[in-house]
């Protein structure tokens, strides 16, 4: 029976699942958007991925989780951060990548890749959600437009204005003022995307700008975000197919490593090598309340 490796990116707004077969071929890739670290979202993505692959859960031999909810999934054999997973996934998609921009629901990360395809440095937003998908979500609501249409409408802008505040809440007030002043929706939306681009440029500066740059994460689907980022960075960004699931792909590749290592040395406990990296928390944190839940949901 073919054995499979699974990567789950349990993100702040979406759950992504990638299944690879023993040869490393992608058997499934699923996304579910159900809100912040949603149980239902991850369950749907898991079910969808298994269906796509046409396999039973018992065929999955190794699971690696990543994303903000990574520690909540007890079906995972181990968890790895999204920084490491996005880097691995992005390099698998674009082997020559030297910098990865991952703009997700709640945070933005810029990851410098070394000559071996490993993470050399990284920078993350850490004070607020400015420059993230959440920022776009809040401002889409303020402008009264569907999130999916924001990018195309922003690119209709024929002039630009500036949004000075980087706090999502203050920026919302500013957007409302700009609309009240008579600026068109495309102009205001262009300003919103420019603000995200400016924020990301600051993070890129911290790790060092190097080409080629690959963009991953949900915001990579937003054409205006990509456009203004390219403009601000004065470079072309590579947005590979599967950019949003790059983290799950990276996790699946780590799971595949584990699968192969175990096949090469039967009985070896893979986690031994990484116990030092991912020690158990001393106390059960609130996230642990969900332990057991996913195994049950997944297996039911």
């Amino acid at each position, binding site marked *: 029976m073919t054995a499979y490796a699974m990567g789950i990116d349990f993100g702040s707004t979406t759950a992504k699942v990638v299944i690879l077969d023993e040869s490393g071929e992608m058997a499934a890739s699923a996304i579910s958007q159900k809100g912040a670290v949603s149980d239902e979202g991850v369950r749907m993505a898991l079910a969808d991925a298994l269906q796509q692959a046409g396999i039973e859960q018992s065929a999955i031999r190794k699971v690696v989780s990543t994303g903000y909810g990574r520690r909540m999934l007890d079906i995972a054999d181990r968890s790895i951060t999204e920084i*490491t997973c996005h880097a691995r996934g992005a390099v698998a998609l674009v082997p020559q990548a030297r910098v990865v921009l991952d703009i997700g629901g709640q945070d933005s990360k810029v990851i410098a890749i070394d000559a071996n395809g490993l993470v050399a440095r990284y920078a*993350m937003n850490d004070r607020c959600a400015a420059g993230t998908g959440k920022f776009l979500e809040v401002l889409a609501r303020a402008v009264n437009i569907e999130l999916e249409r924001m990018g195309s409408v922003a690119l209709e802008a024929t002039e630009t204005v500036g949004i000075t505040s980087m706090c999502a809440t203050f920026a919302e007030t500013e957007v409302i003022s700009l609309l009240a002043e008579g600026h068109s929706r495309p102009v205001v939306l262009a300003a919103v995307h420019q603000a995200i681009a400016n924020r990301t440029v600051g993070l890129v500066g911290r790790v060092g700008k190097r080409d080629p740059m690959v963009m991953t994460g949900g915001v990579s689907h937003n054409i205006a975000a990509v456009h203004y980022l390219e403009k601000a960075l004065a470079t072309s960004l590579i947005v590979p197919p599967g950019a949003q699931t790059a983290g799950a792909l990276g996790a699946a590749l780590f799971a595949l490593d584990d699968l192969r290592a175990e096949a090469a040395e039967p009985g070896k406990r893979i986690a031994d090598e990484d*116990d030092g*990296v991912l*020690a158990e928390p001393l106390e059960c944190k609130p996230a642990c309340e969900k332990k057991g839940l996913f195994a049950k949901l997944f297996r039911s």
Partner: protein
Amino acid sequence: MNAILERLAGVAQNPYEYVKAWKQEHGGRAVGTLPMHCPAEVIHAAGVLPVVLQELADPITSGGGAFFPFFCGYTRSLVDQATEGKLDFLDAISFTDHCVQLLSAADVMRIARPQIRIHFHQLIAALDEACSLENSVGILHSMATDLEETLGVTITEDDLRASIRLFNENRQLIRSIYDMRRSGSIRLRATQMQHIVKSSMIMDKQEHNALLRELLPQLQQAGKPPRDALPMYASGHLCHAPRPEILDLIEDCGIAIIDDDLYHGYRYVSTDVDESIGDPILGIATAYLNKNDNAPCPTRLAPHTDWNIWLRDKVTECGAKGLIVLLAKYCEPHYFHYPRIKATFESNNIPHLLIETEHEGIAMENLRTKVESFAEITKRRQ
């Protein structure tokens, strides 16, 4: 948990409650001091309890209206403690300056609580000048005189020698715990180490020494740390303690902090006063001028010691696989030095992670991702 560690943790978590209880029990007096360079031996020799003022986790309230929001969390917390009357249990406060923000805090506190006697003694910042020793001796004498006048006591040389002996013993006991921790022979989390040091800043030194003497053999019997934890060196937080939850988070990510230069850590116990120097004030002044060799301070000028180079060597010596810099937001001396530290560690290819902390707290899940990623990168480099 070990009963002694629990006792020390209790004091560290509620420092002022200990002092109030001590005053009530002993009928004694307590003098608050500022961190880093205040020679607490002199205060102790006056027969009072020296207490290093601590940042409290309470929100900044009335103090926020009296002080700049772009000053560090420690100084803002101190000012808030003063405006809220939380320091009224002290009989005096002795400032020994080391940064502009603390100078300002001293002024605001004087205005806010005129009833608390606040001393200010400015120790020379240049440690290698021809006049450094003479100047330091003079300042220490004037500090002792001020204390005598305020407290109505006489500080004798014998009092000073006894205090020096007591403080030296305390430092040596804590340093021996550090030695055991570096060698990997005891299992002690960074938060527990902080409790040991922080409680020493608060407690009666005799009581603290007695507890430490009892604790040492117990630590040796308690077992070794997990073999696969990633050893790290922690640096920074020059005045106040990093929040225990941050240290716990770091160590929950599979890292073991085995050494540090934190003020609420090795920095506090780095340098003894040479008891063989006949004049105790001269001994304390000499220790002050030598302290930079054992834990460089970015507010002191000693051209022969570079903090960044010193740190690089310490990290290598103790067997740490990298450095975690804990930088208190708006700490200007640290801001000034950090670029050099970063450049040194990058050029020597030693992994390092910067964590900027704030009085108001930081996003812990975001921090967890950063720390775990750092651990993953470091582990893969090995």
